[in-house]
């Protein structure tokens, strides 16, 4: 790893997505962790790490989706992460889709709630994420230890949050 600590932006919506995202925290102990989600009370849950608030949105409200995407883009430009991580749903998908704005690599960890098929946002994220992981062995290929053997757009099984 380079001398500078890598900056990792962790993004999700609320509920189970946020519960799952926080369980990934120790993977980034050697990094500068910055969080981004949808409820003000979450700031205290991840302190002393930095936290950015964005609006949540579902695919039923297009205008709100656009607003959420714009706010996520602004967070990306402010934080300038090296890596973007998300467990879903909409704000995380936007962060992964827009990671190219700041040249960040991205990893989508599909929620453990999706046990029989990838979530809708996960299926879309697979097209843009550097790495897509499912938490169910039946939904992905074994994750190669060698990064060069990995293919973009393929879903890999890499363990689970529980």
């Amino acid at each position, binding site marked *: *790893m380079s001398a500078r600590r*890598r900056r*990792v932006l962790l993004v999700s919506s*609320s*509920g*189970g*997505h*946020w*519960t*799952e995202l926080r*369980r*990934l*925290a*120790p*993977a*980034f102990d*050697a*990094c500068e962790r910055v969080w981004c989600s949808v*409820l003000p*009370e*979450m700031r205290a*849950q991840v302190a002393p790490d930095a936290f950015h608030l964005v609006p949540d949105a579902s695919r039923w409200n297009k205008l709100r989706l656009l607003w959420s995407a714009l706010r996520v883009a602004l967070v990306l430009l402010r934080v300038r992460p*090296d*890596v973007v*991580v998300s467990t879903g749903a909409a704000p995380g998908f936007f962060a992964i889709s827009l990671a190219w704005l700041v040249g960040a*690599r991205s*990893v989508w*960890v599909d*929620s*453990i*709630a*999706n*046990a*029989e*098929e990838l*979530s809708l946002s996960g299926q879309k994220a697979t097209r843009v994420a*550097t*790495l897509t*992981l499912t*938490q*169910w062995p039946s939904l992905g290929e074994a*994750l190669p*230890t060698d*990064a060069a053997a990995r293919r973009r757009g393929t879903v890999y099984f*890499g*363990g*689970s*949050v*529980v």
Partner: protein
Amino acid sequence: MIFVTVGSQLGFDRMTAAVAQWARARGRTDLFFQTGATAADLRGFASEPLLGASEIARLYDEADLVVAHAGTGSIIECMLRGKPIIVLPRSAALHETRNDHQFATARCFAERAGVHVAWSEAELAPLLDRAVDPRGGITGGAGIGPHADERLLAALRAFVAE
């Protein structure tokens, strides 16, 4: 105390009303309902549509039993604490969620100790009767740690370091 929770997004009266009906029939008032939007008759019970994170954590801590929709957030909170949880999956056909992913979640988590599934609201009362009977065989699991499994953490560490 029995904590009944529908999660942070949508009401779930099929579950809320069935649990309230069971409690009335058994003369119990030691329940707390987190309901979302609801039309269920909850007179005589403590209830709130939505709760803050610290309040939710306190209720999970104090509950002897949790009844919830089959959301991963609710399930993980109970696994963390080694508490028994009874889940009722939301149905897409009944417009309780956009697809049947909670049935998949329930099928997969049903194998974990402490997670008990009511496949329909009719199965709630018999499960609740067993859960409040010390010999009913409805118990919590051993409890899980606060973080994702080591395999997932290692995969993410390696990805950041690439």
